[in-house]
């Protein structure tokens, strides 16, 4: 029984680590995309300068786009940072659990060696403490998870304002005469990049939720004292 429990546990832990690592992997490409958005903003600025009065309304928009790009990059690096913390907590939890599983095996072995049914008091105390410790770590983990989700939410809000800017850009572009199509291309580029980031954030969010489910499953497993292997 212990073996089934511990192999299930290893599986859950592995899934958990994979889920967390996937968040970082998903986010890695966002930096590149936000750089592309900045580049598009610079492009738009150059076009707007050439268009002069015809693109007056477009100029402040380019500053906005730039700002959004910077904000997205900042938020995403924040998400990455929080993900590292989450992963540390998952590892701490893994250590505590692993030690508890092995101490549980030790109890059985010790009883066999000493030919007794009375469990070693110190080991029992360790297991009790380790359950408390697991609960603490899991609480910290849940808090960290919420932190992460709210950061993702904030990033999403930034993206929504970026989308609005794209719509405004298109309207302004229609007033720019012969520069209309160049400005529209820029607006499309930005819209395309924003869409990509949104997709990545959705995937990251799913990974975080997946990680949280894994942790919950983990929290459901307790050591049955005295079970044999």
């Amino acid at each position, binding site marked *: 029984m212990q073996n089934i429990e511990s192999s299930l546990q290893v599986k859950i832990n592995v899934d958990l680590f994979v889920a967390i690592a996937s968040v970082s992997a998903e986010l890695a490409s966002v930096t590149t995309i936000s750089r592309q958005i900045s580049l598009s903003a610079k492009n738009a600025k150059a076009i707007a300068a050439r268009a002069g009065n015809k693109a007056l309304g477009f100029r402040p928009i380019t500053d906005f786009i730039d700002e959004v790009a910077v904000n997205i990059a900042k938020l995403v690096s924040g998400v990455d940072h929080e993900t590292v913390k989450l992963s540390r907590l998952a590892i701490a939890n893994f250590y505590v659990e692993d030690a508890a599983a092995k101490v549980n095996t030790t109890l059985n*072995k010790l009883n066999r060696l000493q030919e007794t049914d009375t469990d*070693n008091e110190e*080991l029992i105390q360790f297991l009790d403490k380790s359950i408390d410790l697991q609960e603490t770590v899991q609480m910290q983990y849940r808090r960290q998870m919420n932190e992460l989700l709210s950061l993702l939410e904030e990033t999403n809000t930034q993206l929504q304002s970026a989308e609005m800017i794209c719509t405004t850009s298109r309207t302004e572009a229609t007033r720019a005469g012969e520069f209309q199509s160049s400005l529209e291309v820029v607006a499309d580029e930005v819209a395309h990049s924003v869409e990509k980031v949104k997709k990545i954030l959705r995937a990251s969010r799913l990974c975080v939720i997946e990680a949280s489910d894994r942790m919950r499953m983990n929290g459901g497993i307790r050591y049955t004292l005295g079970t044999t292997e």
Partner: protein
Amino acid sequence: MKVTSLYNNETYEWLVMARDPEKPDKIIDTNQYLIKEKNRALLLDPGGIEIFSSVLAATLTQTKLEHITDIFGSHQDPDIVSSLGLWNEVLPKLTLHAPWLWEGFLRHFNCSKLEYNPIPDEGKIITLDNSEFHAIPAHYLHASGNFHIYDPQAKILMSGDVGAALEAPGAPIFVENFDEHVEKMRFFHQRWMPSNDAKQDWIRRVRGLNIEIMAPQHGRLFRGDDVGRFLNWFERLDVGIALGRSGMI
């Protein structure tokens, strides 16, 4: 896991814990040593993750959990100390005595709570409450930072991988016929030991020690005249044999 007493006086006892019948196949068999005082115990080369439960259970037949305060790691190998992260979790107060050279490496095994006592290249005395043990240099035998434990009172030398033999499961604790034992040691020493110079230097120093039992980390222990026989045999053995095997490039 079988526990055998090697030496006992009023202050402390030497024990070897070995021949774990539950050891998974393909894992090299290891000897774990325990020195216990009344209220304190030192584990020497506590072994790998896979045998942690067996070693802990065997240890707790001898002493209390809270009394295990010290671990000695002769070098950084997985069969020596990969269980470190678990001891770190389980023991409330733990000092690890290990080569200074390996600190940054050994810390990869979750050493978050324990205290690392780095042993300098020239060696160090490790003290418990009422007894002391000499960590003597055995560098390049086989690891580049490597120590053995010598106890002048018990006349025991815990010799790490030196004197190791690859044995069938359940082999006796002591060498009974040295000449027969030689073949179980030859390849191990020729292939795992890299330096004839390091070997000669170690033999020279060890010959100056008064040794009743030489206790390696694998295989059987040497007693009485077999210690001198081992030193003579090792002196003549050419080690570092893989050097001639660089045929691919």
